[in-house]
């Protein structure tokens, strides 16, 4: 009889031999568990604005590795069901993980008998809990995410969640550099939730495209090729290979080496 409670219920060493700790997954690499402490390949800002019948959301197609423009055709807007779409900034591998778990969720939901797909509001609630749970494990998904679409009763919905699980919503939203450069421009569309009723799709889309252009001028980790989506009751219109129109580099006319003046 082993008199030490530590040994009770465990395989007996004299019969099975001492426990082989190498079977524990975390001890395969020597040292402690490694968690994401900083992002590697990253996407920059995501912008979005509500209008009276829906939401516009946009993000450029660049994935940077530090200051290197590493991948120039990465799609950072992800559709979910018929009336929801999310734009993801931050770590790209974490983005792809999020995209995968949401696809699995979507497939699971479609097996249900009611035929109800999750709306944008449900998606945001789910995502915020995933993000908060991961930050609580000190193993965050290093992203800032905007969820756009329609809520349960068909009203425009726009909300955000970040790597800490912090959530907030507003008539217009922008992550990353966009929160400094684009959000002040977008706020002119609608300062309050009531003013959203006066915003048309055309006005919202134009404002988002203009804000994206300002970001391209001043955010060094941005690109002039982008994706933009419009969600309304009719569904999601997603354009994934847009080009910024009407750039003006007049403010940089004495600066050589980039923009239109190469030499």
């Amino acid at each position, binding site marked *: 009889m082993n008199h030490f409670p530590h040994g009770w219920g465990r395989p007996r060493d004299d019969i099975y031999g001492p426990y082989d700790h190498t079977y524990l997954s975390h001890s395969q690499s020597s040292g402690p568990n490694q968690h994401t402490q900083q992002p590697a390949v990253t996407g920059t800002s995501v912008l979005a604005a509500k209008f009276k019948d829906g939401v516009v959301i946009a993000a450029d197609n660049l994935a940077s590795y530090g200051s290197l423009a590493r991948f120039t055709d990465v799609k950072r807007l992800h559709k979910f069901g018929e009336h929801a779409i999310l734009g993801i900034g931050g770590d790209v591998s974490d983005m792809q993980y999020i995209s995968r778990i949401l696809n699995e969720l979507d497939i699971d939901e479609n097996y249900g008998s009611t035929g109800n797909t999750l709306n944008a509001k449900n998606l945001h609630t789910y995502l915020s809990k995933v993000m908060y749970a991961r930050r609580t494990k000190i193993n965050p998904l290093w992203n800032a995410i905007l969820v756009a679409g329609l809520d349960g009763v068909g009203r425009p919905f726009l909300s955000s969640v*970040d790597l800490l699980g912090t959530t907030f919503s507003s008539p217009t939203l922008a992550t990353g550099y966009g929160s400094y450069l684009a959000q002040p421009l977008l706020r002119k569309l609608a300062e309050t939730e009531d003013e959203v009723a006066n915003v048309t799709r055309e006005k919202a889309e134009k404002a988002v495209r203009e804000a994206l252009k300002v970001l391209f001028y001043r955010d060094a980790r941005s690109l002039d090729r982008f994706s933009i989506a419009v969600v309304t009751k009719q569904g999601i219109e997603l354009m994934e290979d847009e080009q910024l129109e009407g750039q003006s580099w007049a403010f940089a006319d004495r600066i050589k080496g980039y923009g239109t003046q190469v030499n």
Partner: protein
Amino acid sequence: MAFIHPSSLLPSSNPSYSFREGIKSSAPGIQEHRFSPYADNGGSTLGIAGKDFTIIAGDTRQSSGYSINTRYAPKVFRIGGDDDSGTGAKIILAVTGFAADGNALKERLDSMVKMYKYQHGKDISVKACAQRLATILYSKRFFPYYTQAILGGIDEEGVGALYSYDYVGSYEREQCRAVGAAASLIMPFLDNQVNLKNQYVPGSGVGHDLKAKAAEPLEQSHVEQLVRDAFSGAVERHIEVGDGLQMLIATKDGIREIYTPLKRD
């Protein structure tokens, strides 16, 4: 408290430092880059208990550093309502500090209050709910919810009840309490106007013989005005407070909400 780790994360997500903590510099030569699970989202709340009512109020700005995340993110919640909108709720919770922890705490307490009703067939008392909230906070003693909570409602005698908490669950029943970014601005005003501190009965004596005014229960309309005054003062002098004022008033008839705009600068 020493939870906040200022760290510049990536260009596209905000560094989550707190004004209160300032920026701590690490050892010279070595720059350690670490994930901090906390942020300070600013804002202030306050609560005042009356004879047959309790008012809990909070501003609706949510900020991070110098950026305003949104002008409308409620910090004051109905607890134990019948549906999403909180109808039928009798208890009010307000949380400042880290917004994500605040929401998590709210949802935990809300579901706990609902479970109580399903299991016992009656509403939980404010006193029991207050004790339970302390237990929830203490259960995370070594990885705390970075939130300062106040809880209010009507007690079993029909009197306004208000409880305030620290991060790890030590709590106390009080008449009034200001919490959050502008607590230091609002609390002395409340001492003076609710508990009538430093106020004396005129002509009741000279020097040491002066009689202190006794604090008496205030009228609800008077308390509402005090709350508005407290917040319009705080808005002037604290950058993290503003945008909107949300007041939840618990009486025997349930909870009523008043929203008034505050300065947005």
